[in-house]
């Protein structure tokens, strides 16, 4: 082996993703900025002619680190191809309070959070009122922002392949499932974690009336702990997400590659790491067949 810097020294092959400084973007129709976080794949700075698939991770800093972390690990392990991870959410300095923006960003107009009867009554008793948010729901604008504004903007800065995955959990999962059906083709791969809403169930039925195929690779994950959590039951989190998965499978779309998993002994939060890992493996399965596997 050559000593470092000596004649014939090997160029080190980077194995860690690199994180860019946060940037900010204002979506059309919004009066506040979103924070944009980007993690570049290990070979990015030594392979200038290469472009990379992109995972768009919802909920900004809350899920960006774990998404990029699991992605980094699975890239090193040759479980997935090298990818760029983009996190979009509220500004980090707003702290947990900024998470309130996700209600506006991730729910499109017409979203059905709970449902009439048991669920709705429980939410009202507990003081969760979705009605006040209704006039401010901008999930449709947020989807436009991601696809029409942010994607071309970041595409000028980074070498992004025209291969886009949308990943979201909870409200983010609802948003991802909405995007799948409201704007088919805008993303080709989806990781949907524990969440959809009544609007998406209706959208799925409407989509089926007008289409005989859905070209997408989709992973849906849920946790058994969510069924044992009353507020999540009131939002029909597991039942609606399951219904979406079942209906999509029943359609028999020839170009839809769908896999759904239930995680035992996990809750709404702790299910995220395996959903990310398994989701990435599923949605990129067509790209990893030829990857050399390490002997671990």
């Amino acid at each position, binding site marked *: 082996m050559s000593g470092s810097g000596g004649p014939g020294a090997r160029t080190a092959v980077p194995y860690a993703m690199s994180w860019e400084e946060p940037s900010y973007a204002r979506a059309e129709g919004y009066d506040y900025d979103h924070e944009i976080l980007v993690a570049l794949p290990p070979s990015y700075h030594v392979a200038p002619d290469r472009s990379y698939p992109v995972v768009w991770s919802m909920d900004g800093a809350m899920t960006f680190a774990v998404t990029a972390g699991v992605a980094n690990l*699975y890239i090193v*392990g040759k479980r997935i191809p090298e990818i760029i991870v983009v996190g979009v959410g509220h500004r980090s300095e707003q702290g947990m309070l900024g998470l309130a923006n996700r209600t506006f960003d991730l729910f499109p107009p017409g979203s059905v959070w709970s449902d009439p009867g048991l669920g709705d009554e429980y939410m009202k008793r507990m003081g969760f009122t979705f009605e006040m948010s209704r006039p401010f729901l901008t999930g449709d604008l947020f989807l436009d922002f991601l696809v029409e504004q942010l994607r071309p903007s970041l595409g000028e800065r980074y070498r992004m392949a025209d291969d886009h995955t949308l990943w979201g959990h909870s409200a983010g999962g609802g948003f991802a499932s909405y995007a799948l059906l409201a704007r088919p083709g805008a993303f080709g791969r989806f990781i949907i974690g524990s969440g959809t809403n009544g609007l998406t169930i209706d959208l799925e039925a409407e989509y089926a009336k007008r289409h005989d195929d859905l070209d997408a690779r989709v992973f849906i994950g849920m946790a058994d702990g969510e069924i044992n959590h009353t*507020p999540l039951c009131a939002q029909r989190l597991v039942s609606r997400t399951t219904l979406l998965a079942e209906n999509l499978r029943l359609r028999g779309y020839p170009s839809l590659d769908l896999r759904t998993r239930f995680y035992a002994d996990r809750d709404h939060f702790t299910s995220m790491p395996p959903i990310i890992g398994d989701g990435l493996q599923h949605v990129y399965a067509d790209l990893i067949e030829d990857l050399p596997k390490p002997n671990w």
Partner: protein
Amino acid sequence: MVSVLCDTKPFCLLCDLRTRLYTDRDHFTVMPLIIANGLQHVYADLIADLPQLPW
């Protein structure tokens, strides 16, 4: 392979040991779960008083 790092638990009052075997995982894909469950276990004594989120 299962490594037994501590076999004195029945007699050791200081040792809070928990071992899990994960199914459907390999040497690499098991890591996110080990990290997450490991963090929850080793910090369990510090989180008892943390306010719980409604999730």
